[in-house]
């Protein structure tokens, strides 16, 4: 299966007969992606049924509900799910866990990529800031659900059987489609045709591990947005006199008017009612677009990193939401802050990405605030950074008082590292690049700990200073 930047992310909605829920999901998700200016060449949404009769027409009630929610019901015919369709799909969405389980029973290879809609919503809610390319989300979400109980299984029966509940079912599907489209669209490049329609606002260049990205702030809140963004991204901001060309543009719009926001989204902008939300989503957008831009050229790990005065970098590899930022704040007070999210490696060199840190602030429910490493007074790393050590983080709530390190067998370590590597299939030497990198730093180490502050005394050992 082809993967990566430039290849459409393929979403398949699966139900039983493919004349009710499935087509509603397909057409309303297409509607919402269209409203965010996401073309089918970026995200392709289709549907199929486990027991569908090929060529069957849409249920009249499904057609009514699609149109009632602003979708297009034209031209739909049902199709049955085949191994060929399965082979070309990135993520499978079902209305209920029962349909998901039946899908996996018939097509075991879908097991790590099939989610019920309620499951998808709950998993994303727990990791709203997955700063990884869209193609990597299914396996990331699958790892998140291991050993976890999903609280709710939405009641989304077949449209054919639902009678009075049909409108409620369609409303839920519509809301989920809108929400998923908003989330995914932030992680995709803005369409080329949007450039002409884009107003020129307050704009500046950011450097994300060598990728030059223009941020164009628009809307009535542009001035405040620009000031807040420059402050939060102070260490990635490129000088105003820089005459280099940008590689990507992100239009970021803040405005209280829903109409203005909808218009901005239709030309591919990230658009929000307030600065805090805009900054929150900008962080993932910059990271993911920079990762896309360097696919196949840099080894990019989900990792935080700090550097010694001599430029020796220790990378702490871990999935989103498992303690990288907290550790960066603690260690960054004493060692140079390199990144809290994406460790970019070229051979034995590290390209820094000192992005803002997401910090939970009690006064803003649900949204973490973006703090500049300067505001947090984190130390500056040297200019010439060399990868010295890679550590897999294992933070356990019931972990030890004293953290400890353990060496990992080579292949097992590479297997874990691969799960936290972006665009591994695009690297010319694939697993061998990981293997060479691990051997270069003397093997992989696991760090088991509970409190980030207890890790600080281990730094001299990790840097080989004792």
């Amino acid at each position: 299966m082809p993967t990566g930047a430039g290849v459409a992310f393929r979403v398949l909605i699966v139900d039983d007969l493919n004349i009710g829920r499935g087509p509603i999901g397909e057409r309303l998700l297409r509607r919402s992606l269209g409203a965010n200016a996401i073309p089918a060449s970026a995200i392709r949404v289709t549907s199929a049924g486990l027991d569908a009769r090929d060529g069957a027409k849409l249920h009249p009630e499904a057609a009514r509900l699609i149109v009632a929610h602003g979708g297009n019901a034209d031209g739909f015919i049902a199709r049955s799910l085949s191994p060929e369709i399965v082979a070309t799909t990135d993520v499978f969405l079902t209305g209920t866990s029962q349909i998901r389980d039946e899908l996996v029973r018939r097509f075991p290879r879908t097991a790590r990529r099939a989610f019920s809609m309620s499951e998808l919503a709950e998993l994303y809610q727990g990791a709203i800031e997955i700063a990884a390319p869209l193609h990597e989300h299914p396996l990331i979400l699958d790892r998140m659900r291991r050993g976890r109980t999903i609280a709710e299984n939405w009641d989304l029966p077949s449209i054919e059987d639902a009678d009075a509940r049909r409108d409620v079912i369609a409303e839920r599907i519509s809301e989920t489609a809108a929400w998923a489209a908003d989330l995914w669209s932030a992680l995709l490049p803005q369409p080329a045709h949007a450039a002409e329609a884009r107003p020129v606002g307050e704009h500046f260049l950011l450097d994300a591990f060598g990728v030059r990205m223009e941020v164009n702030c628009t809307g009535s809140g542009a001035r405040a947005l620009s000031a807040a963004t420059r402050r939060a991204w102070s260490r990635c901001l490129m000088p105003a006199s820089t005459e280099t060309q940008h590689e990507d543009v992100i239009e970021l719009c803040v405005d209280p008017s829903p109409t203005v926001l909808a218009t901005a989204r239709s030309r591919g902008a990230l658009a929000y009612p307030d600065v805090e939300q805009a900054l929150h989503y900008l962080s993932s957008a910059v990271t993911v677009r920079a990762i896309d831009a360097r696919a196949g050229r840099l080894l990019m790990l989900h990792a935080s990193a700090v550097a010694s005065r001599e430029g020796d970098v220790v990378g702490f590899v871990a999935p989103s939401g498992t303690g990288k930022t907290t550790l960066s704040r603690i260690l960054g007070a004493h060692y140079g802050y390199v990144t809290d999210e994406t460790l970019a490696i070229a051979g034995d060199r590290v390209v820094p990405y000192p992005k803002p840190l997401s910090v939970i602030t009690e006064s803003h429910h649900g949204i973490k605030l973006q703090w500049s490493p300067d505001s947090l007074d984190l130390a500056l790393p040297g200019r010439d950074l060399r990868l010295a050590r890679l550590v897999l983080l294992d933070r356990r709530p019931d972990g030890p008082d004293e953290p400890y390190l353990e060496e990992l067998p080579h292949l097992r370590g590479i297997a874990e590292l691969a799960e936290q590597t972006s665009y591994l299939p695009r690297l010319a030497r694939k697993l061998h690049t990981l293997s060479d990198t691990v051997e270069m730093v003397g093997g992989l180490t696991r760090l088991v700990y509970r409190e980030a502050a207890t890790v600080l005394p281990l730094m001299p050992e990790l840097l080989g200073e004792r």
Partner: protein
Amino acid sequence: MTDPRASDLLSTTIISTCYDDALARDGELLVLAGDEVVLLSPLASELVWSARHGATLAETVAHLMSTFGAPEGADPEAMVRDLVIELAARGVLELR
């Protein structure tokens, strides 16, 4: 329609590899298939290695029996069938 099941495999079914990259160390294989990385057990590693140029199910069972001996209290062919199906579902093997 479904993915192939263990009962669909014939003794003449050809098993071959279709992964994108692999690392071998100490009798184990780590393979990259699509965007998934799978660390194989010694038995699965030997199975995949033996299928690198294509082998029938019967040849594969015979090779694993000669390498590891007969499993205690289990039907070796049934074990191999299940393993082949699992590796095919992971994109490591393809079946003809």
